[in-house]
């Protein structure tokens, strides 16, 4: 319960950064923080008390050990890669924008109205 709330607070910190910050690098960082928080939340939901990593070992039979939920781990693997993709894309857009406008401040580059 406490860990869930802390993790959710991390998500809100990221959201705060996205809504308030005016400079592109901080915005990219904030979107990264949101990504971390959502991934961590999934894995927190998957933890089973006393469970071990979901990898079989030679010395133990299949049903012998308590393991954590493997499905969210598979989902998070996908989502980490997606986040790397979005980071790469945002960085590319940011340096193109920097090249055009010579600033990282999104309030100063407003060519589009509203």
């Amino acid at each position, binding site marked *: 319960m406490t860990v869930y709330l802390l993790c959710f607070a991390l998500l809100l910190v990221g959201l705060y950064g996205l809504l308030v910050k005016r400079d592109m690098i901080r915005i990219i960082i904030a979107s990264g923080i949101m*990504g971390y928080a959502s991934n961590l939340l999934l894995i927190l939901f998957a933890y089973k008390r006393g469970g071990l990593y979901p990898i079989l070992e030679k010395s133990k039979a299949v049903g012998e050990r308590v393991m954590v939920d493997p499905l969210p781990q598979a989902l998070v693997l996908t989502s980490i890669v997606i986040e790397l993709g979005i980071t790469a894309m945002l960085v590319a*857009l*940011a340096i*193109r*924008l920097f090249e055009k406008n010579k600033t990282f401040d999104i309030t100063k580059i407003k060519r*589009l109205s509203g």
Partner: protein
Amino acid sequence: MILPFFIIIPLLAAFLIALISGDRDYWAIIVSVLAMISLAVLALFAFITIGGKTIVYEMGAWKIPYAICLAVDAFSAFMLVIISVIGLTSLMFSIFYIKHRSPSWKYYALFMLLVTGMNGVVVTGDLFNLFVFMEIALFAAYALVSYGSHAEEFEAAFKYAIMGSISSTLVLVGIAVVYSATSTLTMALIAERLPQNSAVMFWSGGLFLAAFGLKAAIMPFHAWLPDAHSSAPAPISSMLSGVLIKSLGVYVLIRLFYNIYGAPPVFLTIFRVLGSISIIIASFLAIGQWDLKRLLAYSSISQVGFILLGIGIGTRWAILGAVFHILNHAIFKALLFYNAGTVEMVLGTRDLRKMGNLTRILPYTTTTSMVATFSVAGIPPFNGFFSKLIIIIAAIAAGHPVYGGIAIVGSLLTLVYFMKVQRYGFHGEKVVEMEDVKIGWGMRTAMIILAVLCLATSILVVPGIRETTLDPVVNAIMDKTGYIARVMGR
């Protein structure tokens, strides 16, 4: 067993385009046109044969709660048809339009990825898989919005990407909470296991509403849309406005809130209120615009408001109107963006004040834009009239005369700002001359096809035809228990 091919064909086309095209892009054109034609044929086939059934396909030969399943019912097939028809015309338009801008195989590869993502979202029956394919479509959309390499296009794409990443994260958190509460990702099982009227349901519903509302550009979440849709190349604008906001936004909202959450009244009220806000405010914003593509983008927000209003009223007729308006809006908005693209290409401007009498130099564009204007403004016998009429009548019949009034006012406002487009943009007094460009036959054909469709789709509401086309879609939406039973094979 045609379901996986809705993904395989465009995806294979995207990879092949990246592999075989060199400096010239004709291989890319051939591959993508072939892929889109086969997709259109498949989608039409699926829609005609599906009726009230649900086709379920289990990936990798595993059984349903353990595998990803694809589930196509009449509503999905309906969306597939829209995607492939608009996609095909868009591609025809792009071949000639992009030749004028900056041709590259990357454009076609990204276009196929866009189609892959939207098809994947529409056919899937698994919540996380929906998220993944949504990301594919969005990544392609970000890149395509910035395709022209101008500063404002990068700015629009950056804004869009930021908004998209917020909404994707919210979706992921929603999926996490739903998974924790139900321990499954198959949408039919979630529908079965998620406790009705619980805190988890309302909270995750609110999260999904915000996230997919961002994708659908409902009014408080709309800020990215006018920039992104007006900065993209014209055929991409029509894909984004015509199909993307519907398959990623509206379709998923309907699927989630009707088939999974069982249409909780709280959310229906929110839909009605947000829909009305979108209709009115976006219309006023559109009236103030002089940039043709921005005006069309605001008009998209307003028209999506109509769809949302229909969903929010929630009676049979209202949903029929909403579903029909999804189709109609896709057709006429795509057509209007093609018109805008042609005008921009010919005159080199999007400003309505710099346009003038285009009847002489662009006869096809002017005529088709008249058709689209009548359609969007709701003049009988064009298709837009019927869908709006159905929504308005349904609102009054369901005891919401205020919402009916809002819809009527919204239609009138639509008429006002499109009269402005016609008055200044296409039939102004100013005599303008053509720049030295050639309008390809593909562009004309795309516009004419859609203009004909504007008129032809009106017959879908005729009793007799409606029973086999739109009614199965409405049944699929309204029947939550039936959805669960058919997907689970009970």
